[in-house]
């Protein structure tokens, strides 16, 4: 433990306090940051988690307070406007030690006091591919803010090294060695350790106003690879499944989806319209049948992810879901836009009809193993619902978001009503609470759900 703590939840939730106009709490947090928060602590932290939660939280707070003055919980506490960015710079300088490797790929951890990088204790010291490639938005924004290009250079070098490994069809193995920059093994998945590599490809392209086409090119390659190798259909209802290839692209398909994969429907929609509402995007010169197909894919995957919630008695998804699939697997590319399988039209049981089967839609398609039945309050599905609603305008997504929020409220609230907890089993009602709350719970859900997606005028 650190002597003074690092304030994970406080820093992660500053922008939430701003969006929710919690002025008193925000002033309290700012005072703590100013007076007590020190990153000069002899403490090893995850390079990735510290970048996205702490550095990201500070930078977001800086952005919202300086670019929208007086809009989000304005405070007059006499503290400098640079409060957040000063802390962010100090933290980033410590984190950069992790990038001092032969290849430039960062090590998994770093000591905040010494700035010395530390290899992972597991996985033969290899870093997670997603972690190494999901620090770019933060470091590049900090570079832009400070005019210091070394943040930029460190971040983009990682992308260069990964691309030089020439991952087949743009699909990356989930581990990478920091010394040589080569991949470890050939486990391919969009779930843990793979996920945000893909997310940050398209978001890097968007962050710099579509002026870096290399990242869109890489995203497009990956999408083609996903369609070729990973997309299959569940049995009997034909939900679209984004599966894994745990022994390389030319070996068996594993019909397993981590909940983490559910960032994909929203991200596909974001990548297809670049954040524009689809009606506007359709008027753009580069819109065509491929974009329509991709929007349909986003819609189908969204349904699959929502189904992970609606098939359980709690209305909450397990950490990992398996699927029954056709034998041999039906693959996305065996079909064309007009004959491709689609999941059930609705996840609701037919109303006013005496239904013989009263089990939730998709019950025979989804498999939740006992070891995977916990729920860590993960946000990927609500994130995707947010994007899908903002981009398609379909109210269905807002309704699904609300339904999900109600399930969290009902089953994860602590007995004293003062907080929320992750739960041990989504298949039992009431579920056992785990006495743990991830800091991201306070970021994603208030951002996207409690406000029923109402804030922020423009995804662009």
């Amino acid at each position, binding site marked *: 433990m650190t002597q003074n703590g690092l304030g994970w939840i406080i820093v*992660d939730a500053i*922008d939430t306090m701003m969006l929710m106009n919690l002025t008193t709490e925000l002033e309290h947090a700012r005072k703590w940051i100013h007076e007590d928060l020190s990153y000069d602590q002899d403490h090893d932290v995850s390079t990735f988690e510290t970048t*996205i*939660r702490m550095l*990201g*939280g500070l*930078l*977001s707070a800086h*952005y*919202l307070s300086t*670019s929208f003055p007086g809009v989000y919980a304005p405070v007059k506490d006499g503290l400098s406007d640079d409060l957040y960015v000063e802390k962010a710079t100090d933290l980033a300088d410590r984190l950069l030690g992790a990038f001092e490797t032969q290849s430039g790929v960062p090590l998994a951890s770093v000591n905040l006091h010494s700035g010395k990088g530390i290899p992972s204790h597991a996985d033969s010291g290899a870093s997670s591919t997603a972690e190494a490639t*999901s620090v770019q*938005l*933060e470091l*590049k*924004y900090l*570079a*832009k803010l400070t*005019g210091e*290009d070394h943040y*930029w*250079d460190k971040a*983009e*070098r990682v*992308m*260069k090294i990964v*691309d*030089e*490994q*020439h991952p*087949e069809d743009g699909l990356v193995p989930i581990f990478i060695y920091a010394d*040589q920059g*080569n*991949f470890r093994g050939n486990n391919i998945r969009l779930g843990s350790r793979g*996920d*945000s590599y893909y*997310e*940050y490809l398209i*978001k890097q392209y*968007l*962050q*710099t*106003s579509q*002026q*870096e086409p*290399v990242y869109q*090119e*890489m995203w497009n390659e990956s999408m083609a690879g996903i369609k070729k190798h990973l997309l299959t259909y569940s049995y009997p209802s034909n939900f679209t499944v984004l599966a894994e290839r745990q022994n390389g692209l030319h070996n068996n398909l594993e019909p397993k989806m981590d909940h983490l994969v559910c*960032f994909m429907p929203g991200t596909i929609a974001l990548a297809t319209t670049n954040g524009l509402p689809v009606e506007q995007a359709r008027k753009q010169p580069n819109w065509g049948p491929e974009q329509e197909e991709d929007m349909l894919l986003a819609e189908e995957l969204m349904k699959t992810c929502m189904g992970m919630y609606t098939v359980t008695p709690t209305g909450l998804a397990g950490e990992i879901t398996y699927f029954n699939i056709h034998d041999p697997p039906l693959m996305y590319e065996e079909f064309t836009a007009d004959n491709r399988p689609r999941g059930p039209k609705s996840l609701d049981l037919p109303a006013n009809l005496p239904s013989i089967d009263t089990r939730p839609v998709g019950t025979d398609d989804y498999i939740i193993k006992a070891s995977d039945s916990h729920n860590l309050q993960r*946000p990927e599905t609500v*994130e995707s619902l947010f994007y899908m609603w903002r981009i398609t305008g379909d109210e269905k997504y807002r309704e699904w978001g609300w339904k999900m929020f109600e399930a969290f409220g009902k089953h994860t609230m602590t007995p004293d009503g003062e907080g929320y907890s992750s739960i041990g089993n989504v298949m039992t009602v009431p579920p056992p609470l785990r006495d743990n709350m991830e800091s*991201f719970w306070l*970021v*994603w859900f208030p*951002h*996207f759900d409690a406000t029923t997606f109402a804030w*922020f005028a*423009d*995804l*662009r």
Partner: protein
Amino acid sequence: MVFNTEAHAFPRFQLGKLFTTGWERKKAGVVEAAATAVKDSAVDAGKEAATAVKDAAVDVGKGAATAVKDAAVDVGKEATAVVGEAAATAASVATAAAAGLGKKVATAAAAADGMVTEIVRNEERVNLLPGVEI
């Protein structure tokens, strides 16, 4: 606006004068290109050696018994087959996608070396055919 993977909001911005994409994608075939080069040189070496063997065989054949001539032709064929096989091995080893380009190149080169040694040995066998004047 763009959200990081923790839902923190950042602006979209222009690269401006200070920033640029500081790298370019290398063609997907750096490893493959090196492998092809090894393969090509192996094939070339093989062809050259095969020609040498053939020439030697022809020389041997001149003024020699028909049996010896046939034997020389057979040896030549065998040598060519060995060359082909060795080249294929070199190519497959070299093109197999994997980490460690240097190792791959070394393997392919070793295979090519082995092939040339084989050819030299075949030449020697031709030279050592009994009763032949060279």
